[in-house]
């Protein structure tokens, strides 16, 4: 029910409605809750409304944390994960 899908804004009209591609289909969604959203931004879409503009820097930071973790484990010889599972 709280499902929200990340999707990229293709176009924005004067009524704060945006065109996005959801599941391969073009849909119009409302940007009333995210007036700062720009064409090209990714937003989380829930029941026809963008509820949050995704922050690429924060996303990158998370991915880098994961990558560091992988490196640390590799350096330590890492738990031999494939043997565990």
């Amino acid at each position, binding site marked *: 029910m*709280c499902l929200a899908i990340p999707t990229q804004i293709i176009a924005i009209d004067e009524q704060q409605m945006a065109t996005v591609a959801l599941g391969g289909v073009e849909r119009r969604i409302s940007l009333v809750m995210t007036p700062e959203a720009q064409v090209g931004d990714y937003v989380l879409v*829930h029941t026809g409304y963008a509820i*949050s503009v995704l*922050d690429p820097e924060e996303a990158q930071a*998370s991915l880098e944390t994961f990558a560091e973790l992988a490196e640390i*484990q590799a350096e330590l010889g890492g738990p031999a994960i494939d043997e565990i*599972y």
Partner: protein
Amino acid sequence: MKYIDEFRDPALARRLIAQIHATAARRANAQPIRLMEFCGGHTHAISRFGLRELLAPAVELRSGPGCPVCVTAADDLDRAIALADVPDVILTTFGDMVRVPGSRGQTLQAAAAHGADVRIVYSPLDALDIARQHPQQEVVFLGVGFETTAPGVAAALLQAEAEALPNFCLLSLHKLTPPAMRAILDVGEVALDGIIGPGHVSAITGSAAWDFLPREYAMPCAVAGFEPLDILSAIDALVQAVVAGEPAVINTYARGVRPEGNRVAQNMLAQVFEIGPANWRGFGAIPDSGLTLRENFAHRDAVRQFPVQLTPAPEPPGCRCGDVLRGVIVPTKCALFRRVCTPRNPVGPCMVSAEGACAAYFQYERECVNGLNGFF
């Protein structure tokens, strides 16, 4: 960056799982770390990706009340079904709601088969369109959902006001999540070490909405997204907090959730709704946990516009949805699970909604032998 595949990397998922096991092993007592995923979306993802099994025995995951369809009380459903039967009413709602049984096993779907005009919409905006197209009828939107969903409904109501659209009103069954979390902890039926916080609720409320958990309950909370790496990094953060004995709110979904949340959406909620008691399946009335329409929206309030007679509603006999929703039992402990109650013939709402814990266990947990369910 597409914000999906990057967060499904199987090698990284396995690294995180290894780290979780390693950290949990440092805990002084060898007890499993017990976490509740509040949100039904997390329950679904955890089952789908087989995470429960991959994290056992270090971590035990218990589902919570975060499925809005599931926590809708039977008598609220009875009211919705009674409204659908009012002549010239078009009842609009989200898909899952039409199959949830009311107190006598009746559903909106069955009401529709008997001639009621019930329409499934993807967005409250679609319900507005229906109202514009049918000026002679009254369109009632059955609003269910938490903080994630309620702002869109508020926005639709404000738009109806702006257009002076006369034939659109709302049956608000919207609920707030922090009071339910409090109710679970206050009752203390289930022992927990940490909470996986709902990501999309928090996109609206802000991660700060959960600050009371470490402050008042010494309970760590990690706000999480919905991809496997999101959920695993939240669990990793929680396990570290538990082992270190340092409860805090940790936002592991910072790409979508800010500490303060979405102020525009919060303002829309405040404009349209006031906070009042709400009935939750499995809990009964929880004070200050529901959103009711403000007095100046009385003309858009289906409860005030269409008074209906209701008889008090018992739960379906044998169904243990209430215990499942409070995290007291896992679905497989219900005697009806799989034997009588299936997604085709659901006895209770936890088997209807894809995010209901019973449906998630039914669909995924049997096949899950080696975890990650072939996703990686």
